[in-house]
């Protein structure tokens, strides 16, 4: 299959290894992977802040960028939810609504793509680690992904998966929320990270790099030993 990568803007700039791991896993499965360099940001920061005109322009750009792509796969449930659920809402009544719906149907979160679209759980990864999975809210509640990432993790050789309390509780990132209401965001990070530490895992894995920015940022600031990895990085480990 020809897969067009949808790389979140902050992954592009801050954690490119997540994008590279995504590309590698897909390529190792025999897919033809492309990256369309005209892509930037999906527009979610403006959408969530109420500036829908700015977000709408971003959505229309994305329609141009990904025109003709067979499937679009992104290593971020949040950015994929933006495309899948919120582009059609932003473009309600717009002449290009049908295009937005078409793109939504062709766009997948990375783990979702593997399990639901390709029907693959074991990608041949190997990682000796005790891992706990953090459900990002967009993956869990907007895309309805709960078992998919866990199935992928259970198939990794050497990996043991433990559940943490508060696995489905928000980490407190929430985009601009994290800096507009930092005291609440940080309190939420604390609740989340305390539970992660209590789980006894060495690694916290998520499908959302934005959650990992928050969780990882708080854990390292607090000097905790538990580390963060994106699902794609785990699946790329050999």
């Amino acid at each position, binding site marked *: 299959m020809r897969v067009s990568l949808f790389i979140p803007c902050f*992954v592009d700039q801050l954690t490119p290894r997540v994008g590279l791991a995504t590309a590698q896993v897909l390529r190792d499965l025999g897919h033809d992977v492309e990256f369309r360099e005209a892509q930037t940001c999906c527009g979610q920061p403006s959408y969530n*802040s109420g500036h829908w005109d700015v977000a709408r322009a971003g959505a229309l750009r994305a329609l141009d960028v990904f025109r003709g792509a067979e499937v679009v796969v992104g290593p971020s449930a949040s950015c994929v939810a933006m495309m899948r659920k919120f582009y059609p809402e932003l473009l309600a009544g717009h002449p290009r609504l049908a295009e937005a719906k078409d793109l939504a149907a062709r766009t997948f979160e990375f783990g979702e793509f593997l399990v639901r679209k390709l029907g693959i759980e074991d990608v041949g990864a190997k990682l000796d680690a005790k891992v706990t999975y953090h459900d990002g809210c967009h993956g869990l509640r907007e895309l309805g992904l709960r078992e998919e990432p866990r199935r992928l993790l259970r198939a990794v050789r050497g990996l043991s998966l433990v559940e943490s309390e508060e696995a489905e509780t928000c980490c407190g*990132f929430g*985009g601009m929320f994290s800096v507009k209401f*930092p005291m609440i965001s940080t309190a939420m990070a604390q609740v989340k990270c305390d539970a992660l530490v209590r789980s006894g895992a060495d690694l916290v894995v998520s499908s959302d790099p934005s959650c990992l920015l928050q969780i990882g940022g708080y854990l390292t600031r607090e000097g905790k030993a538990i580390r963060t990895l994106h699902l794609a990085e785990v699946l790329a480990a050999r």
Partner: protein
Amino acid sequence: MSQPHDQFLADATNATADAPQRDFLRKALGGYYNSRDTQKARYRDWEHARDAAALAKWNAVNRLDRTLTTFAANFERNGGKVHWARDGAEARAIISQICREAGAKAVIKSKCMTTEEIHLNDALEAEGYGVVESDLGEFIQQLRKEPPFHFVFPCMHLKREAISDLFTKHLGTAATDSPEELTMIARRHLRQLYVDADVGISGANFLVAETGQVSITENEGNARLTCALPRVHIALAGIEKVIDKLDDLAVLLPMLATAGAGQPMTCYNTLYAGPRQPGEPDGPTEFHVVLLDNKRTALLADPEQRDALHCIRCGACLNVCPIFKNIGGFAYGTTYQGPIGSVLTPHLRGLKSWNHLSGASSLCGACTEACPVRIDLHHHLLHNRRNAALAHASWFDRIFHGAFGWVIARPRLFALGGRIFRQTLPLLRRLPLPYLTTWLRTRDLPEPPVRSFRDEWKGSKR
């Protein structure tokens, strides 16, 4: 920034700094999660039950003109009197006139958030009536001169010792840490007050149009006494409380109990069909229902957020909300706390002053998932944010998002900006910058890579 926004930031800062209180709240709600899940598992299909409950409310709310008039006609046929109040002031005036005409001195109340919404107690007390809350939690909050902390569990923020101390101070009772004894203290104090009261005031969980009945749900039996003993009864209800049929209660009553409190059914579910009828030995001789609009018809006119009128005030969205669990109920500064409060308050009190509550959410969606009547809560917070940005965005926000939109439309500029950001981050960390400095106060950022993803991709192609 509006005054309520400033106040919210200050109160949220204090509340989140109080780690023991946050732990206490989270643990208190931990028990709720367990019992809720146990009760949910007894439904053949919880999701289907949510559909049925949402449909029952949808039917009533989307034909409110007819449902309400049907209720009013049937309730008056039973001998009750219906009053229509456009806003809080009208409702207060109606209620105070009923009290005056009844020659009342003392008023006893059962739990009713709508009276909180219109600040009824203050108004009645200013006119010289003695007003007593008979719900245990509300009674405690009244003694503390505090509003309810949670609109279903008014004093859930208090430990037993605090309640015992409060009773010692106000009622002169001995200290105890037994919840049963604390309940008995309040009960002994309240019993005579029911007998002495001339007017009883309650809310309504549902108004059944088909039969003209007022449905009241409670765990303590205090609402039954409030409705039965005083000679005059007044029930205050928002117009969205009306439902079509008695049958609708078959799904709404258990779901209210399970979603809100993790109970199979609330202990007492009573239907009141008006005043004492000829030949009946007890019950009030007058039974009034005051129907309150207070901006609800404006919300009804908003097709996007109309489903917020489905709310049955179960409190499930507060119980699962990580924001509520970390800032508590008082920081909201509203009658209705939590996600439903953040959705409703801008409609009730004005978007300009109250939109910050819609912003104070990570949009995690736990509320929407928990709502038994399927209100699209977290997406309505997005709708409020959009409406606020259209009506009165700050100049900073306009410039910020305008510039952001301009940059993301230009991939080369975006890539250049990213490179500059990565290379200058060590310097930027030390500058007082909006957002970045705020982030770094409590959290690190990953060490920025030399090459971005797009750089790496180009490199690998070469």
